[in-house]
């Protein structure tokens, strides 16, 4: 029986699909309602950041449908049903170098440290390695990658990992702590002690609020991409791709190649401005070739591509059916009323990426403002953070793409390994080459962020009732009131008074918008501390109270004796 049961309905399940993808393929666009206004929620970010897609699977409530593999025979329902115990965890373990994240940076770091003969443990929250960039289906392996870029590099990194690294997929770190002589990571598969930690936790699409952005069928580009690359499901039949940044191109082309009609790509930036950064372009010639290749493929599929345009509203009855597009000024402001209405059954929209910083913050690493209007972990050329023993690589140190992430991962993995045996000096010429390659790619990324900065147009398009926070259903009017009526002068006060960022996703989605809005409403420039206000999360993922109670050995032992309830609830 290759199907699952969704509220009594048979939903077909194909190999490699997530629960969200199986539901989506069956035409289900929402499977949960918000608790105040009963707004429909389904897939949005598609990669585990937004918590919109929570479902109950075989009685276990609040699972992220975008991460959970669809298993034939399971029973899936939207609203929470009676609780069931969660699966038990793997044994506690320890390693010299623990790498968090199995995307391009994490795989490279793990491979590099393993080749330097350290005991390496690689943790990844996804069930399959590759991160967002190399998100794939099992059948893609050894088959040329079905159009994945740098696929052979992925396969070679993975083969090193499979040979030399302890790899724990589907393992989410929920708490990271620095100890006297090392670090402890509490994960959904047990406790891990580490002498060195490499954070390669990646990033997720940055969303900004606009009227209709929480309609079912509106997803992020990463969400559309994960459905397609990870589960082989197209996000719609007629799709609009919008936002800012080069990532829109592979998303649009990928959809077109899967037979989807892409009704338009609306890019807020003006790519002609790359010409203002000649040095950065020279250092990364490959990037230009890539862009030209995508441009040719857009043309081949006759996909309209408009620059300095933005989707300003999404509308539809229960799901998106139309978007309005407006032209932007060179400064990213609205150039006038919307001039285009585009029919579609899905919209993929995002303005760059936000780094997953919570583990870095929990370990005390210093942050820095990055060129992409966000914050990132401050690192030196070899990925050393401000905390001795903690390294970071890839998007978490500043969004720069997979090529840069691999280089940074190698440098960080090598540095972490070398720090454990300082006498064994790493081959310096090779690393010097990597450092200069990283610098060139970073310069290109900086130019890219300047060209594709999130435009201010979204601020102009907000209405009183536009949701800023999707989880807590906080309208723009409430954020405005916190500043104008209740005297909030910083993001923390806005959060406490109006509750944006207080729900399931803990500000992952609305953090950027809340920071920008707060600064704007207070009439001052956006600061690093505005942007960093949502970066720290003591719990990097939700943790069952029973698991939290069991996480401290003394407490676990204590309550087993003193607490007559313990036996009943375990």
């Amino acid at each position, binding site marked *: 029986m290759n199907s699952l049961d969704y509220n009594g309905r048979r939903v077909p399940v194909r190999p490699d699909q997530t629960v969200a993808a199986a539901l989506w393929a069956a035409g289900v666009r929402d499977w949960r309602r918000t*608790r105040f206004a009963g707004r429909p929620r389904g897939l949005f970010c598609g990669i585990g950041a937004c918590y919109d897609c929570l479902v109950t699977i075989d009685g276990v409530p*609040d699972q992220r449908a975008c991460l959970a593999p669809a298993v034939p025979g399971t029973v899936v329902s939207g609203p*929470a049903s009676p*609780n*069931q*115990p*969660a699966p038990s965890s793997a044994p506690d373990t320890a390693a010299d170098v623990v790498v968090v994240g199995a995307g391009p940076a994490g795989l490279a770091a793990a491979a590099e440290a393993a080749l330097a003969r350290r005991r390496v443990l690689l943790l990844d929250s996804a069930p399959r390695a590759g991160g967002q960039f190399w998100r794939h289906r099992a059948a893609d392996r050894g088959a040329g990658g079905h159009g994945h870029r740098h696929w052979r590099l992925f396969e070679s990194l993975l083969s090193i990992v499979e040979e030399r690294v302890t790899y724990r997929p589907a393992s989410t770190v929920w708490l990271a*702590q620095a100890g006297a002589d090392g670090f402890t990571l509490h994960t959904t598969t047990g406790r891990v002690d580490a002498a060195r930690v490499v954070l390669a936790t990646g990033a997720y699409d940055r969303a900004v609020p606009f009227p209709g952005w929480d309609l079912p069928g509106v997803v992020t580009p990463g969400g559309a991409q994960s459905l397609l690359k990870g589960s082989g499901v197209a996000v719609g039949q007629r799709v609009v791709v919008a936002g800012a940044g080069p990532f829109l191109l592979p998303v649009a082309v990928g959809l077109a190649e899967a037979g989807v009609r892409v009704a338009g790509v609306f890019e807020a930036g003006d790519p002609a401005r790359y010409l203002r950064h000649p040095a950065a372009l020279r250092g990364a010639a490959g990037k230009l070739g890539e862009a030209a290749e995508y441009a040719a493929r857009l043309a081949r599929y006759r996909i309209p591509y408009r620059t300095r345009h933005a989707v300003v509203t999404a509308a539809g009855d229960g799901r998106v059916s139309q978007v309005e597009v407006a032209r932007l000024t060179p400064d990213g402001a609205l150039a006038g009323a919307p001039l285009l209405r585009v029919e579609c059954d899905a919209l993929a929209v995002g303005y760059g990426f936000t780094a997953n910083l919570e583990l870095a913050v929990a370990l005390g690493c210093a942050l820095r403002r990055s060129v992409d209007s966000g914050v990132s972990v401050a690192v030196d050329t070899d990925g050393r953070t401000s905390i001795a023993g903690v390294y970071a690589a890839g998007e978490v140190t500043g969004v720069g793409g997979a090529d840069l992430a691999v280089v940074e991962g190698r440098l960080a993995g090598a540095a972490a390994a070398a720090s454990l045996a300082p006498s064994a000096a790493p081959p310096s010429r090779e690393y010097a080459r990597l450092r200069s390659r990283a610098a060139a790619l970073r310069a290109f990324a900086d130019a890219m962020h300047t060209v594709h900065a999130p435009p201010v147009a979204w*601020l*102009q398009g*907000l*209405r*009183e009732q536009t949701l800023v926070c999707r989880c*807590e259903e906080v309208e723009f*009017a409430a954020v*405005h009131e*916190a*500043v*104008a*009526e*209740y*005297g*909030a*002068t*910083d993001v*923390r*006060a806005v959060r*406490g*008074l109006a509750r944006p960022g*207080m*729900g*399931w996703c*803990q500000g992952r989605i609305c953090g950027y918008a809340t920071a920008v809005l707060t600064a*704007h*409403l*207070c*009439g001052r420039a956006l600061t690093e501390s505005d942007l960093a206000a949502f970066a720290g*999360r*003591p*719990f990097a993922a*939700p*943790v*069952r*109270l*029973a698991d*939290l*109670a069991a*996480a*401290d050995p*003394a*407490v*676990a032992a*204590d*309550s087993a004796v003193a*607490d*007559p*309830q*313990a036996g*009943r*609830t375990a």
Partner: protein
Amino acid sequence: VTAPLARTGAQAAVRADASLPGTADVVVVGAGVVGAACAYYAARAGLRVAVLDRGAVAGGTSSSGEGNLLVSDKSPGPELELTQHSLGLWRELGSTLDTDRIELEPKGGLVVAATAAGLDALRELAVEQFTAGVDAVEVEPEDLPRYEPLIAADLAGGFHYPQDMQVQPMRAAAALLREAVRAHGASLHCGVTVTGVLRGGSGEVSGVSTSAGSLSARSVVNAAGTWAASVAELAGVTLPIAPRRGFILVTQPLPLADGQPPIRHKVYSAEYVANVASDSGDLQTSAVVEGTRAGTVLIGASRERVGFDRRLSLPVLSRLAAQAVALFPFLADVSAIRAYRGFRPYSPDHLPVIGADPRVPGLLHACGHEGAGIGLAPATGQLIAAALTGTSAPVDVHPFRPERFS
């Protein structure tokens, strides 16, 4: 379609900016709930009040608690008397500030004991409280589910305190400040650090110097909460207020069951009363569990004196989780999504410091409320206003006098 962004910035009703007035009758240092109440009652009494805070509104301990308005955890004495008066003021404020906006809920408290001995201690306290005017109703173990359907099954019993209430402390503080500004002409200045207390020829207060210039005033109210000792020091006096750290776990938002939140009262274990009153600096935890309007459940309470150490403590969080699950077994499968810590302003005799400081004419203190500041804020504000205007105080202020430690 409105253009909401047009009405921002300079037109804001509450100007939380740095431009100070040249003079005021009273400078309140601290825009937490206690400072807000002092400002509200002083401005309402006709004084020109300027509130200064180095951070944002309610950014210190007011943003780190649960919003407890409790009589149940207090033994008869000056603090209970002040609390009873203060809760009456909160009910009044509810109609001024809008109970919905400040999430003022007369939800009542339920204190439970796991053992017969614990229940005896609770009963003894309840009898004392009853003679002091506190409503306390003993609840037989078999009746506990009528109050809390999901509570653990094998408890020895408990007491229901209908007078206990809860409020959203940040919204309450901000609403008090808004009312002080809007209705009574006070001014609010956030992001302004007080760097000195100015003194006149005979040592009396003549104003403050700040990061945004100086401001002359006859009176300065030290409502700096956990940081009150350093403000006192600026005026040349010592005040033994120290931080006592606490952690709170926040669960995922829970759906209503039969139109009701899964946890309906403030529910806590008998040990909490002893911990609140304890002088120990060591870690103490006791289960304190309650729902919020937003659907989340807040889980406390821990107490330890470790200075301003902001690091997360897994042993503390772990203990809080275990104790909450023991009280409400269904919480085992509920997820914590957040944790936060705060620093209660601890005073050595567990009583707040309220009133004029005889050592420096013009200096008043309104601080040291430890974990009871939200509840005690209105009464504190009223006492400060009475001291500033020379009118008679509604309760005996002698136990709270600032010079009692010297």
